[in-house]
């Protein structure tokens, strides 16, 4: 591959907004090497032997948390799980104090999920260890963005020139933002689709095409990334009814018939089956949803490996 001279120098992975196209390619290429590790009979390499990775999650998570935990174990790191519930956070300890105390036990990498945008960035400036953002509010979810890029590249052999629709609850979505940054840097055209209440025009300044009518673009896109409607974050005024949303923006079998024949359907999970995506599509031949999860492991191994031991 053509990035021999390019080297990774970042101690933290906080988002895709500030990564260069080359840096993104380094992560994807490194993930490619880690994907091979998962096919071996011994699915483990000693790259992070003697390191400690702590998952610090202030929000619920299935995929991301498990995936980071397994990724760290496959790199031979020791893994600690920290969750807000049952911790001293409920006694009023701040994020920074919590993190510094965990770090004082000899931690090398903190994987942080937090409901506040910018939490990972703040943390990275307050601790000496590496910080990997596993989702901060509606801001970024870089490893999800990277695994989506990886999955698209694996499927099409390239990213440049593809048309990618990201559909649904855009305004609340960190996945949409990370995807948007990454895809545009690698030369894809991003079309954001959703109702005006969940997709403000301001996204145009981030380089996306903003469309409020799914039908307008459905026949021209190569990839459809359906986002979860985040009911826990939505105010009622933004969202009149589930039925109306499904009718206008849900990916149904009927709507699929107007897509390109080889359209690739993605979803970051967890899915609201029957709301933004129908079960026939989610489990059908166009779906890459479980491939995304498989690739997520390799991408997270790459992220942990790359940020480890980079001096600040």
């Amino acid at each position, binding site marked *: *591959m053509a*990035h*021999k001279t*390019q*080297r*990774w*120098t970042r101690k933290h992975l906080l988002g895709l907004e500030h990564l260069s196209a080359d840096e993104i390619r*380094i992560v994807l*290429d*490194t993930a*490619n*090497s880690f*994907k*091979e*590790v998962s096919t*071996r*009979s*011994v699915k*483990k*390499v*000693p*790259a992070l032997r*003697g390191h400690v990775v702590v998952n610090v999650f202030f929000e619920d998570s299935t995929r991301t948390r498990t995936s980071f935990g397994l990724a760290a174990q496959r*790199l031979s790191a020791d893994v600690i799980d920290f969750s807000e519930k049952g911790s001293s956070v409920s006694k009023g300890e701040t994020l920074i104090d919590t993190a510094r105390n965990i770090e004082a036990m000899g931690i090398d990498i903190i994987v942080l999920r937090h409901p506040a945008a910018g939490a990972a960035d703040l943390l990275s400036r307050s601790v000496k260890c590496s910080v990997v953002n596993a989702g901060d509010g509606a801001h970024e979810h870089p490893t999800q963005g990277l695994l989506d890029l990886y999955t698209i590249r694996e499927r099409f052999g390239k990213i440049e020139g593809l048309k990618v629709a990201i559909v649904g609850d855009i305004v609340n979505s960190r996945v949409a933002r990370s995807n948007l940054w990454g895809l545009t840097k690698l030369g894809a055209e991003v079309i954001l689709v959703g109702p005006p209440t969940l997709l403000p025009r301001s996204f145009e300044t981030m380089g996306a095409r903003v469309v409020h009518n799914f039908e307008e673009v459905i026949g021209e896109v190569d990839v459809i990334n359906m986002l979860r409607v985040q009911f826990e974050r939505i105010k009622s005024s933004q969202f009149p009814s589930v039925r109306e949303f499904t009718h206008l923006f849900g990916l149904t079998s009927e709507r699929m018939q107007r897509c390109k024949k080889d359209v690739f359907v993605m979803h970051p999970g967890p899915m609201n089956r029957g709301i933004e995506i129908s079960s026939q599509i989610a489990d059908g031949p166009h779906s890459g949803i479980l491939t995304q999860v498989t690739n997520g492991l390799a991408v997270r191994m790459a992220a942990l*490996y*790359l940020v480890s*031991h*980079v*001096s600040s």
Partner: protein
Amino acid sequence: MRTQYDQSDIERVIDQLAEKVAGAFAPGQTLNIVGIRTRGEILAERLTQMLRRRGFTRIGRGVLDITFYRDDLSQAGPKPVVRPTQIEVDIDACPLLLVDDVVFTGRSIRAALDALMDFGRPSVIRLAVLADRGGRELPIQADFVGLALKDVPADHRINVRFREIDEKDEIVVEPRQP
């Protein structure tokens, strides 16, 4: 000390190396040949072709990237790009020839041996190198050596170049780039 070897020298050295390897294994038996990226991979491919001409018909091939197994990963610094390891053959219970361009401290070979053990249990592992410059830091020796260059000064490198990726074939002993 000679510091320059050209294409015809390299062809001769690899041919002699193939001759030594051929004498140590039975042509009718399975032999897996695994090269260490990047130039060990190319040397392994050339040796494979020469061994096939010498009647070795059952050669399995593989490529090893040893980055994840290196013992200097923990030293801070930017990360080089890793490429996938490709060992699709079953390496259990057959002889395996490990191939690298230059053996020096022996640490790359140590990493490669660790990586191979994660793939299976070869009956024997032998090591072939184009050049041996001495300076071992581990108890590891090559079984088949093309050139023995034991007097290379510490501040010099042995740069092996192969036409597949470097435009031409040559071995040059030159001062380390700063």
